[in-house]
């Protein structure tokens, strides 16, 4: 992706939850709601409130809204963070941290996208094998042979 004009750079998912192939249903945890415990679901989830425990949405997507605060390990197909997360993010497809996102924890996903300006402290595992993983679109001067994860550059 290096060397491309910004207009060609891949834009992150918008603030909508990425549509799940298994379900179009979407649940929302409102900003005044706080939940403690283990959350398991089979529909997409938007979190504007506070959630503490674990979150497992194996086939579905999670959006942590700007006001959302999750203190938990999260596993989902796609995870988009606009708010705050303290805990591990395990994305079966992709993890996206948007400019407003604040994440402290480790990320494991075939594709990881960070927007410049996000706050992130932790590790990104670059060796999660996936059939969806494509070589990082880069300069051509980047001949790393071990393509496993793809990260998407998003400069704002």
């Amino acid at each position: 992706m290096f060397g491309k004009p910004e207009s060609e750079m891949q834009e992150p998912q918008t603030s909508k939850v990425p549509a799940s192939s298994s379900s179009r249903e979407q649940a929302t945890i409102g900003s005044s709601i706080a939940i403690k415990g283990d959350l398991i679901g089979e529909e997409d989830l938007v979190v504007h409130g506070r959630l503490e425990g674990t979150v497992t949405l194996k086939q579905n997507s999670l959006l942590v809204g700007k006001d959302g605060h999750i203190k938990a390990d999260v596993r989902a197909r796609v995870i988009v963070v606009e708010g705050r997360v303290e805990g591990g993010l395990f994305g079966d497809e992709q993890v996206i941290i948007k400019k407003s996102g604040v994440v402290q924890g480790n990320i494991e996903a075939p594709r990881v996208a960070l927007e410049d300006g996000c706050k992130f402290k932790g590790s990104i595992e670059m060796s999660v094998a996936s059939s969806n993983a494509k070589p990082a679109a880069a300069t051509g001067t980047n001949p790393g042979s071990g393509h496993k994860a793809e990260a998407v550059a998003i400069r704002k």
Partner: protein
Amino acid sequence: MFKVQGAAHLSAPDSDQPAYRSPGLQLIFKRINNGDKINILDFGSPLANNVEFFSSYPCRLYIADWLQSLPLSDGCWAESPAFSPLFPELLSFDTKEQFDVILGWDIINYFDEDDIRRFSRFIAPYTKPDALCFFSVITQKNMAMQPAKYRIMAEDSLHCEQYDCDECPSPRFTQSRLLELMKEFQAHRSFLLQNGRQEQILRIR
């Protein structure tokens, strides 16, 4: 001793600066490119390009983001108490991690000498015997009051995004002085660049 204070008066990093050739980075990528899975510790900020670039290699990338983590108050670096008491808090790992590559960028220019000694002692246990550590030492008389963001453009190319802020005197560490302060490390290679930086690649003793 200079210290980050506050983002309130900062302008965005200057993205008009041209990328420059970085032989130090090239050396780092030779180490990364040997095929083994490696651990990388990046003291810089999370930058999309850097994450993307490292994603081409089998690695685990730890982003410590000390630029963001150091105490901030009113928009400039100024005389302040030592950073070193904060080190354990700013770099806390659950397990005894060890790294193959440490990217310190220009952060040591903003430490006083005592902090550099403690920084060296602090990171030494996290450093594998054959690890390479990258530091960019400012050789010009003055430097920006804020550390820069170093964006990886290619295996041998960096883009330094400097905040548009006031300047302060640079410590202008010579290699010998730096190694006196960082007793746990030894020089591997150094590269004097035309842009007022000297890239120091250090290894653990």
